[in-house]
């Protein structure tokens, strides 16, 4: 496999390995105030330290006048370094550039900042309420190139965007409903925790900027930096080697503008590598509160759904303005619901910025609606699997966006997962203090649409092949997967195919490596580029074979006249003998779509991910501790390109799902993160994982569609675990994570309630006797 050897010998090229001659190191001074005016930044003592080259503040950068101070993918709201105001604890205020990291760190501790504190707001509902402190009294400008996001910002309520989906007549639906369940569900802020923290090396020259970055969005970062420094796009070069994980946290510029600005100031290359503690406050998963009201008929049919999601976006918008769309349609869930009104608001607060995160808001939505659906099932006396079967979307159904859906396999995915987990056998089972039970859930998720990928495939005269792509390799295995796909298309040995790392000077445009889009979108682009190569090879071979190009075909890497396979020419030889140097094919895949932000109608996704999960858990009733014993997942994959890679992606989702369900939560106290270390913030270790798991990947090759697998397996996991915990204990938690303490409190409340009921019953007996 491509580069596999490097992976086990320590040679994988991460940004943190990258050195440039004369490179300096940087350490940031971060805000200790949640919301404050910056009155003074005292840097003299730090600047006088040995090895320190410069101490730079936001005011210093502003005074230069040669760069824009604000950046952000949609809204230009984030200062490179704080200028007048800080909006969260951890915001970069100043930077020390020094000859070595230790000197920078020692000096950074000596910078003093005077703050004039302002009223701060940390909870999104409070920030949304009238009279709340405002983060931006005036609306920030837009980045001109994110035209596909329509803004419905309301800065009087700290809202950076709102998205609404309306289908049918929701009031009529509720009027007709025989049972209405209305509740609030919460997911906390969490960290993506890529093991490699954000890292960048920036080398700014007066007319050119080169950045080696651990970004998932090289082309967007290039554009952001070009805008910031007033450079043409081709004077900004973004090079992305291997990433040590991304999971969304490395999408959109974060550390790159800082390092680039500092490099300009000192006239030398600058490396910035975040500490784990900094990583936790650089990009978070949105805390989200969902109010969900669902109306059903006695037979289990869902007839109305109304939902409001309040996203805690943190202090800066980042990608929240787009993310509200995913939550708004996501709250419909994978069910055929005739009457729907959902709305999502992204609300700014004085907490670290929230951005992209594996699952892109669908986790939080699924936690709400799959949790509630089990509650509804119980109140109707229906089996959880049965109520899902009744409501799951089927081929030809319309989604809440008005799109007619095809290739739906939800029911068979669910039936299979239920069977594999042993649904229908005795449940729950108690032995001593320990009780076991199972839970299921189903989720629908879109991919980013519209979107664009381009690629080039180059056939060399020796038959080897280069794939030039700007898809970022972050461990998901996109490079080996593309190598395999192109090799298959050309009919050559995958070992002959090399796939580039990203270099915007050399590798063609790709929108971004997020949203599980690469295998579909870049896979499509590289496929077309390979087809382009084959077309050119046929033309060249026709000359060599003295045949009509229309009669030349390529099979198993040989060009030949149709029907005469034996006389073929290896395609590399076609290149060599034609003396064209190489054959360069190009491919582009553009998807169209988009939703109206007031009604949610249109094309939400070029295709829809279908995913189910079934979990078996064990709960210690004395301690509340939950152990996931087994997990059975199922995802519609279209076509599996790389079976091992697909398995890896699904197990990766399980790590995130188990973490989200049981362990992971960023805990803040007045805006101060209190568990910003891996000793205090827990991610699943080997022993925390289920003893067994399996994922079924359903294919439909006739359809010819490849689905990305980075995310779809994730959203069903936490609700499946939550539903299993309920069946085991009778405790239905509405907020993640499912901590032992919450479970135990729930058990105590149930016990106390039962005792009260007994007391009432006793009294009743007395009255009657």
């Amino acid at each position: 496999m491509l580069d596999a050897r490097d992976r086990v010998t320590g040679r994988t090229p991460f940004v943190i390995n990258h050195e440039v001659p004369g490179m300096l190191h940087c350490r940031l001074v971060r805000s200790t105030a949640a919301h404050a005016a910056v009155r003074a930044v005292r840097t003299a003592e730090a600047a006088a330290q040995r090895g320190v080259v410069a101490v730079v503040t936001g005011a210093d950068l502003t005074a230069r006048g040669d760069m824009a101070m604000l950046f952000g993918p949609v809204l230009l709201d984030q200062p490179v370094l704080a200028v007048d105001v800080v909006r969260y604890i951890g915001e970069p205020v100043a930077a020390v550039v020094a000859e070595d990291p230790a000197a920078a760190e020692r000096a950074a501790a000596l910078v003093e900042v005077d703050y004039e504190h302002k009223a701060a707001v940390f909870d999104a509902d409070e920030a949304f309420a009238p009279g709340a402190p405002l983060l931006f009294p005036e609306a920030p400008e837009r980045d001109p190139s994110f035209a596909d996001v329509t803004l419905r910002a309301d800065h009087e309520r700290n809202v950076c965007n709102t998205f609404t989906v309306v289908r049918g007549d929701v009031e009529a639906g509720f009027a007709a409903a025989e049972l209405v369940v209305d509740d609030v569900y919460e997911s906390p802020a969490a960290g993506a925790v890529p093991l490699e923290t954000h890292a960048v090396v920036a080398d700014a020259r007066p007319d050119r900027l080169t950045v080696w970055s651990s970004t998932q969005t090289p082309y967007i970062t290039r554009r952001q930096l070009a805008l910031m420094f007033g450079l043409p796009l081709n004077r900004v070069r973004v090079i992305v080697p291997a990433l040590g994980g991304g999971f969304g946290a490395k999408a959109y510029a974060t550390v790159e503008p800082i390092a680039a600005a500092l490099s300009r100031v000192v006239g030398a290359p600058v490396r910035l590598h975040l500490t784990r503690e900094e990583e936790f406050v650089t990009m978070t998963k949105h805390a989200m509160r969902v109010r969900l009201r669902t109306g059903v008929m006695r037979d289990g049919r869902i007839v109305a759904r109304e939902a409001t999601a309040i996203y805690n976006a943190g202090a800066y918008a980042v990608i929240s303005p787009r993310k509200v769309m995913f939550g708004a349609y996501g709250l419909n869930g994978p069910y055929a619901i005739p009457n729907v009104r959902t709305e999502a608001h992204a609300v700014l607060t004085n907490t670290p910025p929230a951005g992209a995160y594996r699952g892109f808001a669908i986790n939080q939505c699924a936690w709400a609606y799959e949790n509630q659906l089990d509650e509804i099932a119980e109140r109707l006396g229906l089996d959880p699997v049965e109520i899902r079967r009744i409501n799951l979307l089927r081929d030809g159904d319309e989604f809440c966006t008005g799109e007619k859906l095809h290739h739906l396999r939800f029911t068979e995915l669910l039936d299979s997962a239920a069977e594999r987990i042993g649904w229908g056998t005795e449940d729950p089972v108690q032995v001593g203090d320990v009780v076991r039970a199972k839970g299921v859930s189903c989720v629908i998720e879109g991919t980013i649409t519209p979107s664009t990928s381009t690629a080039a495939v180059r056939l060399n005269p020796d038959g080897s092949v280069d794939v030039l792509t700007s898809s970022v390799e972050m461990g998901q295995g996109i490079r080996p997967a593309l190598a395999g796909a192109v090799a298959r298309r050309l009919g050559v040995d995958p070992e002959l195919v090399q796939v580039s790392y990203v270099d915007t000077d050399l590798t063609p445009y790709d929108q971004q490596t997020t949203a599980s889009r690469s295998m579909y979108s870049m896979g499509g682009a590289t496929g077309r580029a390979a087809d382009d190569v084959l077309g050119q090879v046929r033309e060249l071979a026709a000359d060599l074979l003295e045949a009509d190009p229309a009669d030349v075909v390529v099979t198993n890497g040989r060009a030949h006249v149709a029907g005469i396979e034996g006389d073929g020419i290896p395609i590399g030889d076609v290149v060599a003998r034609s003396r064209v140097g190489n054959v360069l094919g190009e491919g582009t895949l553009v998807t169209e779509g988009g939703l109206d932000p007031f009604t949610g109608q249109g094309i939400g996704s070029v295709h829809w991910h279908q995913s189910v999960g079934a979990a078996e858990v064990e709960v210690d009733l004395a301690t509340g501790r939950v152990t996931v014993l087994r997990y059975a997942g199922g995802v519609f994959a279209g076509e599996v390109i790389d079976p091992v890679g697909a398995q890896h992606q699904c197990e990766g989702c399980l790590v995130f799902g188990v973490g989200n369900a049981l362990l992971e939560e960023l805990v803040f106290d007045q805006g101060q993160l209190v568990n910003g270390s891996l000793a205090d913030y827990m991610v699943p270790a080997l022993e925390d994982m289920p003893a067994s798991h399996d994922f079924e990947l359903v294919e439909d090759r006739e359809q010819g569609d490849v689905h990305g697998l980075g995310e779809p397996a994730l959203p069903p996991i936490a609700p499946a675990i939550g539903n299993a915990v309920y069946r085991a204990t009778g405790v239905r938690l509405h907020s993640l994570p499912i901590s032992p303490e919450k479970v135990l409190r729930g058990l105590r409340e149930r016990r106390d309630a039962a005792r009260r009921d007994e007391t009432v019953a006793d009294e009743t007996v007395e009255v009657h006797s």
Partner: protein
Amino acid sequence: MSAPAVFFPRTVAEAVELLDAYDGSAKLVAGGTALTLMLQQRLVSPEALVSLRDVPGLGGTSVEGGVVRLGALVTHTQAARHALVRAHLPVAATAFSLVGNAQVRAAATVGGVLAEADYASDPPAALLALDAEVLAVGPGGERRMPIAEFLVGFYQTTLAPEEIVTRVDVPALPPTAGSAYLKHTSRSHEDRPCVGVAAVVRSDGDGTCRDLRVAVGAACDRPLRLVDVEAGAVGSPLDDAAVEAVATAYAERVDPVADVRGSAWYRREMVQVWVRRAVHAARRAAEHTTNDQREGAVL
């Protein structure tokens, strides 16, 4: 901060002399895990680092007169695997085997973990239940303290800055005693304990309790032992009701901390549960050893 000097003394006396000379501004290094962390986080900035690495005689484990002697430089891994510890102090072997993770156990030492006095640690409770004594050497010579007097609060010991822990003496458990150390984690399996309980039980053939020792760790500022409660259980059968009474007493009298691993309420509940479970486990181990005439307890 100027760079600290680094010393590798060859004797305990030399090390003490260095610490004394630096008058509190030198840091002693054993396994170095906790100190490296504190240095990286700039919580300390010593003028000197005094490594015990080259001091001979601090890394041994032996038994003498019914007392297991654990050298201060014995690592957690060594303590957990040592035949003498497993045979005579199985509860300590278990506690050392559950600290942190394999890499930390390979570096962290018996002396270091006690000198650090981190409340959220496993060995202190086990050593308290075993009536361990800490030996420390300072400018005035050697002194010996029961662990209950050594650990006085959150990260606080009675060790003077110029004193060095050289050894921990732990009376071997009688072969008929059963013991258990149970660690409760409230998050990842690799988390530090939310509550840890060490229990030692010895009973007569008729089930009458002859010795009960229970130490609760990680729930409060330092490990908790209630000797009056222990004594109250001696002389009568340690049946389920008696065990529950002991657990209740600990739960009522503990002054629990609140942190990311659990609220005070939860900790109190867990003290009840895990004292009960640890005493039950120790009782079962005692029955097992009594029946089988085997040494130690299988945990």
